[in-house]
């Protein structure tokens, strides 16, 4: 399975790093500090890179398929694309959260006013 593109030592270090990263994400999901939905992209992308580390020949074939001369450059390009997709999905999640925060703030203001009105009415009925 060793390959001139990826010496065994490097393969072990890279594989271990990826497995550790994968485990970290799983750990975060299990502790409910990261929702499964938001974690999926990270899990999938880590898994894909892990496959390339285990079978470097795949990367060579992929590079040839998209006409990139140096396989590592294909890897860099794909990695940047992955990161961009991950960041975009994050921004989408953030936008959603902002819309909800705005509505929550408004709801809070309306409820506070209503509470004050009700309290004033109650106080009038039964003065303390």
């Amino acid at each position, binding site marked *: 399975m060793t390959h001139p593109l990826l010496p065994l030592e490097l393969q072990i270090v890279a594989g271990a790093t990826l497995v550790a990263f994968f485990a970290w994400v799983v750990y975060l999901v299990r502790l409910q500090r990261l929702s499964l939905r938001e974690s999926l992209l990270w899990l999938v992308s880590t898994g894909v890179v892990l496959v390339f580390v285990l079978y470097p020949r795949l990367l060579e074939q992929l590079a040839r398929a998209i006409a990139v001369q140096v396989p590592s450059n294909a890897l860099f390009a794909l990695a940047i694309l992955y990161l961009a997709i991950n960041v975009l999905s994050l921004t989408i999640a953030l936008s959603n959260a902002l819309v909800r925060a705005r509505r929550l*703030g408004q709801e*809070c*203001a*309306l409820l*506070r006013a209503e509470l004050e009105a009700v309290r004033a009415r109650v106080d009038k009925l039964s003065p303390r």
Partner: protein
Amino acid sequence: MRALAIVPAYNEAGNIRRVLEELRREVPGWDVCVVDDGSTDGTGSIAREQGALVLRLPFNLGIGGAVQTGYLFARQHGYDVAAQIDADGQHDPRFLAGALEIVSSGGADFVVGSRYLEAGGFRSTVVRRAGSRYLSWFLRVRCGARVTDPTSGFRVAGRRAIALFAANYPSDYPEPEAIALAIRAGLAVREIPVAMRTRQHGRSSIGAGRTLYYLIKVSLALLLLPADRRRHAEITG
């Protein structure tokens, strides 16, 4: 006919008292609701002392979110007409009666006060006037709106416009976009001439350097308006 004046206010402690006094004098039959957009200078308490209903937002949402809070309140309490009045004293409530007349007689769903329809009053700087002209041209091309003062914050909304804006109101620099949304939802939008004043205390939230960003942002927002007309129709229908 129940009418509500929505006064979005962010750190307007120096102006709010006068604005509320003027509203009480000019349109005594109206309810007044100040939306305190997370002020830190006691704007909310001053407004409450003046007898206005205060909706206090827990954090600063910006003008769009604040105004929408007012429309949500108007819808929740079944107001027939809701007007937006700036808390900086720029707008003269004298013009509210005429706008109310138009909306309540069914002449329009949404009335915008324009400082360019008649001579007089405060008309802003040359750069901003050019910006207004550009935006009104853009609005006409994009959705057939005929307005001369698209950034004016003096607005009066009827029931259908209240329902639309309660459900859907743009966030930052919302004024021109709100006109486009109203037109796309099939509402009748009309302008009336109003005279505006320079603000009394503090400074405008849009500095000269930001005008360009403002124009680009608003142009993009108008270009990218949600394409689905039916969704808006359902909201207002």
